[in-house]
């Protein structure tokens, strides 16, 4: 949870240095793409007159981590949400479920994996900033402790209230994200989802999943109870009822439940 990024669209000049640095850092093909793909983990788009970076938001309670059946996604204590390609089976639930539509798939490969920004987790462990932040010439991408990024965002909003929309995107969205964004253009116009709840999404499925043991225990007891009662009833009916002899199974499947 410690580290985070602050993205400020008002300072972004759209030079694309972040994209180039990201590709070099992560060994991705250098072709320039206008949207994020499994091979382009961050890119700068022009929306509503502003330049906006597309990248993983690194949620504090990540949906992708919760939905992955094999635990290939993991939130590290430093902040990055990292991906273990060796575990991934390719169900693409993360692609489907991510509220920010971040994980992308290698649709063109016979042995495909997911691609997404991992916030340069390896660099962070060495005490370095992310590649994108280290090359940003204008301070539009700032790296530091998340608390410091929140404070800096508040400072910028307070210092120039007319310049910014009065909102820090990522402070509360989907339970909060490690990457924060401030902008002069409304966030909906930047193409960011603005209909997200402020609670972490994984709670929605955990509410149900956490009841699985109860369903098994209670359901099992109930079903066996019904079996026990109706079996006895059937036995009584066979022994007492009219035509009892005809009902008896000549095969003698006594052990048959």
């Amino acid at each position, binding site marked *: 949870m410690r580290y985070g990024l602050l993205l400020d669209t008002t300072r972004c000049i759209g030079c694309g240095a972040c994209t180039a640095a990201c590709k070099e850092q992560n060994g991705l093909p250098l072709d320039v793409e206008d949207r994020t793909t499994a091979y382009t983990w961050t890119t700068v788009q022009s929306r509503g007159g502003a330049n906006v970076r597309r990248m993983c938001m690194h949620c504090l309670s990540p949906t992708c981590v919760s939905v992955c059946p094999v635990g290939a996604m993991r939130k590290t204590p430093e902040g990055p949400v990292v991906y273990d390609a060796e575990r991934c089976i390719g169900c693409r639930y993360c692609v489907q479920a991510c509220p920010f539509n971040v994980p992308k798939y290698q649709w063109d490969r016979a042995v495909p994996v997911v691609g997404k920004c991992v916030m340069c987790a390896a660099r962070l462990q060495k005490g370095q900033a992310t590649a994108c932040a280290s090359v940003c010439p204008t301070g539009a991408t700032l790296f530091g402790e998340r608390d410091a990024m929140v404070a800096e965002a508040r400072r910028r909003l307070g210092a120039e209230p007319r310049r910014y929309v009065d909102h820090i995107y990522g402070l509360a969205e989907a339970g909060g994200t490690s990457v924060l964004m401030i902008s002069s253009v409304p966030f909906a116009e930047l193409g960011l989802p603005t209909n997200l709840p402020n609670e972490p999404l994984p709670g929605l499925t955990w509410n*149900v999943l956490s009841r699985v043991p109860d369903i098994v225990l209670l359901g099992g007891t109930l079903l066996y109870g019904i079996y026990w009662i109706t079996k006895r009833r059937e036995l009584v009916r066979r022994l007492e009822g009219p035509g009892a002899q005809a009902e008896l199974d000549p095969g003698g499947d006594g052990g048959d*439940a």
Partner: protein
Amino acid sequence: MTSVPIPSVRPFRPGFWHAVLVLLVIALAGVTLVRFTRGLGASTNLSDAFPWGLWIGFDILCGVGLAAGAFTVMATVHLFHLRRFEPIVRPTVLTGFLGYLFVVCALMFDLGQPWRIWHAMVFWNEHSVMFEVAWCVMLYTTVLSLEFAPIVFERLRLVRVRNLLRTVNTPLVILGVLLSTLHQSSLGTLYLIVPEKLHPLWYSPWLPLEFYLSAIGAGIGMIIFESHLSGRAFGRELEIGLLEPLARVMVVVLAFYGVLRLDLLWHARVLGTIFRPAYESRMFLVEFGLGVLVPVGLLSWSRIRHSATGLVVGGTSAVLGFVMHRLNVSITGLERASGTHYVPSWMELTVSLGLVALGFAAFALAVRYLPIFPEPVRAHGHGRTADPLAACSAGVEP
């Protein structure tokens, strides 16, 4: 049982459907090659904006749902002791077993790296619905194969092995009902995590219950549909005496499900939108009409329930409406949020149709060579042994 009934093998006559099957299987083989050498992009219309398509929406969601007849009937006969439904146990378990095999096969196409499917057994994430789904698929397929195995052992005259399996029948059936309950509902739970993406006509916090109830309803519809098909193929009358009470249960389940759907839409304040001239509204009306209104409306009438045509129309409509619901949840309801319009590629269609065709073929073969419609012992010496299927309907009488 001293003698094991073996269906008489009728001479094989190639026909139209055999040609369709052969063509589909050849096409399936070609598409399989493309899928596994060139990837999902070359074979499907899936994309980052629309990562789940026909194989999830139809093959997985509908395949699992339409296999729900198996656990319903197993519970009815073996847990509730309503023995008169015994004759439909085997065809229904066969349908369920083949349904799950269909799902597993389709999963091999849809997963990016299907050879890693065992990872779900080693790397656990109990917070993932997909993890629950994976375990349910594995365990319930095992249960279904154990419920199906006695039929095979009977055919192989391994009566002792069959009887051994019967000693664990009760825990097996209870396990099957529990796993089915979890599996059917969990397919709805999958979509709980996309409240901002799934259209409000389909998103609801009660999706797991909706999936569970509709699967039970459609599972019964499938029993009627499948009885009709095998009846037609083998020149048999529909077992109205058995299907009529099942249809009554279906009416109750679907009516409850229908009222629940409308009630939840009302609470979500979107009930008024179902008549809007929007794509989603039209799809909802077709789904709700086929899946709830037609079967409940028709089969509430005793006279319609007692007619073969009425049963088949009502049951088939329930199945079609169910398929529509699953496709609406997995495709229609997600299109607007994705900003794309997804139409499956011909290769996706080929895989789905090819696997369905193989399922039908497997069903026909099983019925031909296995005691699926078992000849009741009482029918011995009645001159019915030549046609075990006729003997089956003879066993309907209490």
